[in-house]
């Protein structure tokens, strides 16, 4: 199994989610994060002082799938999250040794 971590632009979340649903991935965990990278934050003003906000709000999607599905999932995410503009984000694939469904105790593929 593998864990796919995708860091995307927040307003792309719905599309990515739908893309994953289409290929049969219904479970995922999402998380609000702050990104630093090529895409810069913006300037803001407060009571007369200007300042630079470096981070950009991003959403991180964690999805664990059977290794066989990894390419398909990566594919689906990169397609749906792509705007072609800087800051689209990254997808990282990590190995997963084991998975357990707490409710049933099932392990392995059947757990996800």
């Amino acid at each position, binding site marked *: 199994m593998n864990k796919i971590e995708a860091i995307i632009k*927040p*307003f792309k*979340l*719905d599309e990515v*989610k*739908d893309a994953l649903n289409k290929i049969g991935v219904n479970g995922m965990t999402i998380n609000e994060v702050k990104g630093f990278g090529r895409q810069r934050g*913006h300037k803001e*003003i407060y009571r007369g002082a200007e300042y630079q906000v470096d981070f*950009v709000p991003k959403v991180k999607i964690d999805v664990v799938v059977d290794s066989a599905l990894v390419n398909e999932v990566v594919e689906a995410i990169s397609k749906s999250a792509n705007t072609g503009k800087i800051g689209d984000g990254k997808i990282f694939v990590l190995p997963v040794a084991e998975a357990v469904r707490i409710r049933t105790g099932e392990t392995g593929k059947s757990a996800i």
Partner: protein
Amino acid sequence: MKTFIISGLLILISAVGAWADDKIPTVLSNKEAIALVQTHADYVWTLVAAALVFFMQAGFAMVEAGFTRAKNAINIMMKNLMDFSMGSIAFWAVGFGLMFGVSKAGWFGTSGFFLSDFTPGGDPWVLAFWMFQVVFAATAATIVSGAMAERTKFSGYLIYSFFISALIYPVFGSWAWGGLYKGGGWLEHLGFIDFAGSTVVHSVGGWAALAGAIVLGPRLGKYGKDGKVRPILGHNMPLAALGVFILWLGWFGFNPGSTTAANKDIAMIFVNTNLAAAAGCVLAMFTSWMKFGKPEVGMSLNGALAGLVAITSPCATVTPMSAIIIGAAAGVIVVLAVLFFDRIRIDDPVGAISVHGVCGAWGTLAAGIFNIGGTSLKIIGVQLLGIGACFLWVFPSAFLLFKLIDVTIGLRVSPEEELEGLDFAEHGGNAYPDFEISHAGGVGTPEGHGFLKTKPASEKMLGKPVEQT
């Protein structure tokens, strides 16, 4: 001889009392003194009421901010601040003269601009009266900002804000209320009843709001295909509720203060105002309960305001029992109206059109129907005429104004700016920098349960809309 004695007596007496000023009091001087004390009471009451009405600006700001998203909170504060600040200047320079200046034809006033009717040392009543009227003008102006929230360009809004206080509001006002000062309008001559302004203030604001919402179009993502409605959640319900309580308080200046005199009439006006608001709130809650299965807070808050708007016109000329009926009806009407405008895809984030426009019209009609002195087809006819005249003047002129702004400097921000939020895009700020903002299923800025897409019309969304019944 007698006379000597009497006058002698008076002199002695007046010499006695420490209280006595140099003048010897007479029945006539006392009568004047009494009138003066009454005048002082009138000033105090009128101006205290004006202060309460001013405070409604805070109420509108809180309601509007509470019912919209965190990413636009600064913009809403700025609009409300400017509605009142620029509006005060505009009404001082132009509006007051148009509304209350000498009006030959009865269509608008032509004197008293820049408060020129006041001369140092002269009678300051014009100042007390102006103070009471300027807070009314600002109320009409600020109503509109709610319906145009979360997508209006700030610079364009400022232009609009100036013109409603300087032109649109005063002209209609002169038709119905000009006679309260030096003017005299055709509508009031027909006997139009609008004691505190269900039509003059609230419908004017409501119909201008309607024009604004139509010209702007809905917020990105508000409506899906097939008229499906995607709620865009207000970000702070306690703030919205605080706003409603503040508005309710302000209405105790708005309605009874419209006597601009300290007299016994204010008692019934207070009671009617309160009972109508209470009835509107209760009925709106139960209506939402029946329609949605749960007592919904947004509708309940709108219901209280609906009752207040509706009783504004009839508050001085109906019985408390009638006030309850008028308010209760408004509570039901406002719920249906909010759903109606959503169904015809007019996006009004705070329900301003329903609360002020529709319920303002209802209240004005009710003033005729429930008139304590009895009603008649003629009375009702005049009320309907006033309601119609208001719509026919305000809606087209506001529509034109917004269109003109749109084609010149622009009325709506870009989709990117709207997604980013007006606080950053228009004001370079952040209303809540210490708080983590949730984007769940939303866009790159505070979003509530966010339903926005890059392609607004797209059907893909996190929150699945449910067909309304």
